[in-house]
């Protein structure tokens, strides 16, 4: 058993940290592409050069910690799915992954239905849908490819809570290509879940660090806040939970390529833990800050919104806990 990063992954991590220190906003994605970071999310068979759990986890943790909002998870899922289906996407193209539906928490096929090779219904909260080169759509039991200019597709854009652009997609007998059953793409989808969990880990670590920094520097009644034992003990509890979240990501990343039942247990445990800890950190970090933690000007607010978004992406703690308890697969 060995918890150390490989030399390659350490180099990747260093390079990524350098980029994130130097670039942000619109300049970030080109810099990541140039450094080959998106390619590190894909296996050689998918046209990349890594695609391991460790690589996915370290990349998205770093992005989360830096607060980067990019449509990279949809692109990773889409590129891997298309490669698996034998229809590889262009390098550098953004792909949207349309999963959530109105009227249900995370069930699929509630608001969207299939008739032959046409889709009718609605998907919601689709990151990166504007300007995507392709759209991957889930239905009750299958994965589909839809062209962004397909007939009967309406895209209604708005900002997402994590500062990405999102959209509702309205399908009216929209032509689509069936890529295969959801269960056939479980390894690809699992990588997406890992990315969201690792992103949440980076985000919540940053939120706890910011909170500790605040507690150390902000004074009340003539003392730094961390000198108040009730706050100090809650900060200690937070730091314990950050370790739990890190271990849950480690477990899942280390079992990404394990047999499906074992991998799915770790997937579910990871998303449950990250959801639970993300909610706790969101609540406690604002509370420990007080009013300043609620203002848009202060960095914490964006972290909280990204945490809530990461909790809900591809099934929240409630959804995965139920499946874990029932012994059900993650995707079926």
């Amino acid at each position: 058993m060995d918890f150390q990063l490989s030399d390659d992954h350490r180099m990747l991590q260093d390079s990524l940290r350098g980029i994130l220190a130097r670039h942000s906003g619109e300049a970030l994605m080109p810099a990541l592409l140039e450094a080959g970071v998106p390619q590190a999310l894909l296996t050689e068979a998918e046209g990349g050069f890594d695609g391991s759990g460790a690589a996915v986890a370290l990349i998205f943790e770093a992005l989360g910690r830096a607060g980067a909002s990019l449509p990279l998870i949809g692109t990773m899922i889409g590129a891997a799915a298309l490669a698996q289906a034998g229809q590889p996407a262009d390098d550098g193209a953004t792909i949207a992954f349309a999963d959530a539906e109105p009227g249900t928490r995370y069930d699929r096929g509630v608001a969207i239905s299939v008739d032959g090779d046409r889709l009718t219904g609605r998907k919601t909260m689709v990151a990166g849908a504007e300007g995507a080169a392709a759209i991957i759509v889930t239905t009750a039991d299958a994965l589909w490819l839809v062209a962004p200019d397909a007939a009967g597709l309406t895209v209604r854009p708005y900002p997402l809570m994590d500062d990405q652009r999102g959209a509702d997609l309205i399908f009216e007998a929209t032509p689509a290509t069936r890529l295969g059953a959801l269960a056939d793409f479980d390894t690809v989808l699992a990588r997406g879940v890992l990315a969201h969990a690792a992103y949440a880990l980076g985000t919540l670590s940053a939120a706890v660090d910011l909170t500790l920094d605040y507690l150390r520097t902000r004074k009340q009644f003539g003392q730094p806040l961390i000198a108040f034992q009730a706050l100090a003990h809650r900060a200690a509890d937070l730091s314990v939970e950050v370790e739990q979240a890190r271990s849950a990501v480690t477990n899942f990343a280390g079992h990404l390529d394990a047999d499906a039942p074992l991998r799915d247990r770790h997937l579910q445990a990871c998303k449950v833990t990250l959801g639970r800890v993300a909610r706790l950190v969101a609540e406690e970090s604002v509370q420990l800050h007080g009013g300043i933690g609620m203002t848009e000007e202060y960095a914490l607010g964006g972290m909280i919104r990204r945490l809530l978004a990461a909790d809900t992406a591809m099934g929240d703690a409630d959804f995965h806990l139920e499946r874990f308890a029932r012994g059900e697969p993650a995707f079926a």
Partner: protein
Amino acid sequence: MDMSFTPEETAFRDDIRAFLKAELDPALARKVRLHHDLTKAEMEGWHAKLQSRGWLAGNWPKEFGGAGWTAIQRHIFEEESARAHAPRIVPFGIAMLGPVLQKFGSKEQQDHWLPRILNGDDWWCQGYSEPGAGSDLASLRCEAVRDGDHYVVNGQKTWTTLGQHANMIFCLVRTNATGKKQEGISFLLIDMETPGVTVRPIVLLDGTAEVNEVWFDNVRVPAANLVGEENQGWTYAKYLLTHERTNIAGVGFATAALDNLKRVAKAQRHRGQPLSDDPLFAAEMAGVEIELMAMSTTNLRMLSAAAQGQAPGIESSMLKIKGTQIRQRLDALTRRAYGGQAMALTLEGNEGPEGADEALAASATWLNNRKLSIYGGSNEVQRSIISGALAKG
């Protein structure tokens, strides 16, 4: 012991319900339910409707133009209004300043300011908190220096809710910088149109701007606007915090939030059934409903004791803590009931399917209501108040 309403209380409740049914615009109620910002006109309009029935100031004695309701009546009014999603009565004039003026203000101040609150001539806001003070409210530094028959005010207030609509602000200001910090504070009424007053909105993490910073730069305030005695303001502020707070538990708001949650859970699908039938979600809803049932009675027990003349002690701190816990749990459950749909805060005018904006409202409400456990004395401050009393035995 009798847990039922008297016939008079029942008649009162029916009266309130009939009023709400007749007078509350459903479109306005929907905005309230979704926690959308109301316009100043919408709030003032609702105040005027209430005042036309003499119900705007339920907590004021009749001699000052109030309704003179009992604690139970006020509880009924608040619960019915909240469940109907009526706009909340803006508290700064009615619930906060009014009682202070009635207890500590001069006859002239009462005669001048109280009617203006009732008829909507003035919109008051509150100048208590300052940047850097936080829970240590008494460490405030905004200073007022006597200059002839004026005070000259310099400094900054923050977290001033709805200050953007206000023409008047009641402030705690420092009039003595020596000695115990609580003993150099005065309670001053300031016209916000005086030169030197600047209001700047604070955008919150849900995108709203309901709170403000207020700056005072050599603002001249007539000395007649001092309430009570100089350097006694802390006493008046504490009076405000421990009295006249029938609604601190927020039972009505919580009940309305529970109604809304049940409606959402019935509509959302889960494994082909309503989410409300899911044993896990149903148990969580039941858990918080049971908490609310108990708190509602805790609230009434304490109101009843206060009505018997027992002095309010740590009860309002207890109700604040439990009340915010319950509302924040309800907010969290509602957000979770929407699941993957609750990942945005605005549709930017893109009309969604029926009710899409409700999912977004769930996230926005979750974010906005983090304030409940922070403002008005954070829950940590409340715990310290309670444990301070417990330490004395």
